[in-house]
C-alpha cells in the first residue's frame, strides 16, 4: 500500500522526521562551521559523531557515568581529539586546495572507523535510554517517546545557541573576521591559529553531542557515522556550503520531507533527500542559503 494517506500516519511520520532532522541539523551545523570558517570539507565528521556515542558508552561501562554526565564529558573529549587532529594534520591544509582536506579527513575517517571496529567489533554496543526520559507522551495523533521530545527540544536549542554565538557575539565576529582576513585580525593581537583550532574542536564537539544524543535510540556501531554523514553532506549542499543558519533550517526541513515521504511513498524515502539535492544544484548551485561563490 504505497499511497496510504492517513492523516495521523502522515503527522506521526513528520514528527519522527523532525527528530531525524534534528540530528541532520546538529551534524550539518558542525560541518558548516568548519567549512565556512576553516575551508575544510570535514569528511571525518561522521566519525566524531560515532566517537561521541562510543565515548558515552565507555564512560558508562568503565566509570559508571550516566547519560547526563556523558552528554557533558563526551563532547569535551571529542573536542580534545579534534584539537589533536587539527594541530597535527588539518592545520597544514588551510593554504592548499579544499580537495586535500577532503582526502585527508576521508582517510582519517576510514582509519578511526577501522580502529573502533578492531576494538569493539562490528556489531556495536548497547546503550539504554536514561531512566528519567523513559516513557511516552500522547500528542493526540501518536504516542511520542519522551526521549525523542528531549532530542527535538535540546537539539533545536543547541543549534540556535550555536548560531547566536557565531553570528551575534563579539567572539563570533572575531572568528568570522579571522577567516576573512587573518593577517588583519592577527594585527589586532588575536591569536588566529588558536581560534581556528578551537573552531574545529567546537565543530566536531557538536558532532560528539549528536552522537551522545543518538546513542540511546540508534545502535552504537562503527558505521553509524558513515551512514548518517552521507545524508548530512546532502543537507549541507542543499543549505549552501558554509551557511550556518541554512544548515539548521535545511536539516530540519529535510527531516520533515523524509518523514512525509515515509508516510506517503515509503520506497522513495531513502532517496528523496538526494533528489532534492539534485534539483537545488540545478536551480540554485550555491544552495538555498549559500552566499559563497
Amino acid at each position, binding site marked *: 500500500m504505497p499511497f496510504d494517506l492517513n492523516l495521523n500516519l502522515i503527522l506521526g511520520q513528520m514528527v519522527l522526521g523532525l527528530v531525524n532532522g534534528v540530528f541532520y541539523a546538529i551534524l550539518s551545523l558542525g560541518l558548516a562551521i568548519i567549512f565556512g570558517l576553516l575551508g575544510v570539507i570535514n569528511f571525518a565528521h561522521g566519525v566524531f559523531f560515532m566517537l561521541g556515542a562510543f565515548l558515552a558508552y565507555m564512560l558508562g561501562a568503565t566509570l559508571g557515568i550516566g547519560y547526563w554526565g556523558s552528554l557533558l564529558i563526551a563532547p569535551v573529549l571529542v573536542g580534545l581529539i579534534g584539537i589533536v587532529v587539527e594541530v597535527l594534520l588539518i592545520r597544514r591544509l588551510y593554504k592548499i586546495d579544499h580537495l586535500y582536506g577532503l582526502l585527508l579527513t576521508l582517510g582519517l575517517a576510514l582509519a578511526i572507523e577501522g580502529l573502533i571496529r578492531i576494538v569493539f567489533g*562490528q*556489531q556495536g554496543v548497547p546503550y*539504554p535510554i536514561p531512566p528519567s526520559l523513559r516513557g*511516552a507522551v500522547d500528542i493526540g495523533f501518536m*504516542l511520542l*517517546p519522551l526521549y525523542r521530545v528531549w532530542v527535538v527540544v535540546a537539539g533545536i536549542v543547541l543549534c540556535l545557541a550555536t548560531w547566536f554565538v557565531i553570528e551575534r557575539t563579539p567572539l563570533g565576529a572575531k572568528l568570522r573576521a579571522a577567516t576573512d582576513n587573518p593577517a588583519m585580525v592577527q594585527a589586532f593581537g588575536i591569536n588566529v591559529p588558536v581560534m581556528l583550532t578551537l573552531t574545529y574542536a567546537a565543530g566536531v564537539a557538536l558532532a560528539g553531542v549528536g552522537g551522545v544524543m543518538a546513542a540511546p535510540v540508534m545502535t552504537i*556501531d562503527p558505521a553509524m557515522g558513515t*551512514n548518517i554523514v552521507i545524508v548530512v553532506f546532502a543537507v549541507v549542499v542543499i543549505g549552501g556550503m558554509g551557511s550556518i543558519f541554512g544548515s539548521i533550517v535545511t536539516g530540519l526541513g529535510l527531516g520533515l520531507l523524509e518523514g512525509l515521504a515515509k508516510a506517503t511513498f*515509503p520506497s522513495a524515502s*531513502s532517496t528523496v533527500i538526494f533528489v532534492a539535492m539534485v534539483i537545488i544544484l540545478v536551480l540554485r548551485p550555491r544552495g538555498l542559503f549559500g552566499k559563497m561563490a
Partner: protein
Amino acid sequence: MKNRWVKAAVSAAALAAGSIPAAADVNIGYLAMMTGASADLAGESALHAVRMAVEDFGGKVNGEPINVLSADHLGKADVGLGIAREWIDQKGVNLLLNVDNSAVALAVSDLIRDKNVSMMMAAANTKLINEKCGAHQIMTILDTTSQARAVVIPQVKAGGDKWFFITVDYALGHDLQARATEAITAAGGQVVGSATHSPQATDYSAFLLQAQASGATNIALATFGTWQNTIAKQAQEFGVKATLSPFYLTDTDVKSVGLDTFQGVSGTIQFYWDTNDQTRAFAKRYEASYGRPPTWAAAGNYEYTRHYLRAVDAVDGTDADKIHAWMREHPMELVDGTTATIRKDGFVVRDVYSFRTKTPPESKGDWDYFVINGPVHGAQIEPDLAQSTCPLVKG
C-alpha cells in the same frame, strides 16, 4: 603458526618446482569475513572451532598433518575468488571452509566445479543448491526457503497469524520475504503489510508505526546485524506490542544490543550452546580456550571439519569424489548429539531450534539469552527435492 606458514611456503615452492609431494598434507582453507558484517558471528571465533576440531582429531589424518590456512574475503567475490585460486593452485588446499557470503560462494563454486577440491559454504542463496549445485559443495546453513519455514512455522502454530515485514532492500531480504510469505500462507497465517529499508537506514520508527497500525501479531525482520539491532531498540522505545520475529538473530546480536532490548523475541537457530548436556560440554571446552561460548557458526564449522576429516580418514586419501560420497552416505554427528544428512544437492537436513529470548531477570548473565522451545525437524523445513533444478538430483 609459524611452522604452518613455513610448511605452506615450502609445499608451494615444491609445487612450483613441478615436483609432486610424495604424500600430500590435508589443507583446510578457512575463507571468511574477518571484519565487517558477519565477523562477530564467524570470523576468528569459528576459525578457533576449526582448529579445535583438528586438534580433537589428533592433528593428523592418515599419518599426514592437517594444516589450517585462513584469509579474509572482505565480502567481495573477486577477492574471495583470488584467494581460493591461489590456495588451490599453490598451496594444495583440499577444503574451502566457511565461505560466508553468497557472492563469494557463487564465484568459488564455478572455480572448483571440475577440481579435486571441496567447499562448505555458509551462504544461503538457493541457487547454490539448485542450478549452481556441485558434487563437491555443501551448504552448511539453511537456505532462504528452509530458514523462512523454520522461523515462521513454529510461530504461526503458536498463534502468530498476522505478519508485517521489515525487509532490507536487496536480494536476500526480498528472497526471505517471498519465501516466508509462502510459508505463512501455507501455515494458515496472513501477511498484513511490509516496508523495505535501505542498507544505509538508521531510523526505523516510521516502519514500526506502520506495523503497529496494521494490527500485526508478528513483525518479521527480513534483515540482520546492526539493522535488526536498531529496529529492536526502536521497537522497544515505541512500545511496539507485536512480537519481533527476526530471521537471523544470534547470541552475538543480543550481546551487542543488550537483552533488555531483545527480550521476548522469537526466532530459530541451528545451534545454541545451552540446549542440552552435550552442547554445554562442548561450550565449556570452547570457552576455556576462547573466552566466550561458541556461536552456531563456530559449532557448525567444528561439525563440518570433523565430518570431513572422518571422511578423509575413511577413504584413505583426498579424492573429493570419494570423500563426498562418504560424507553423504554417513550421518554427520552434530555437537548436540543428533545427526544430519547431506543431500545430493548439498543441502543438509538437520533439526534446528525455535527459541524465545529471556527477560533480563531470567538471564543469569552474559550469553544466557535464549529459552529453547524445542526442535523444528529438518524434514519439516527442507526444500522440496522434486522441485530442485540441481543436475545432480535429476541425473
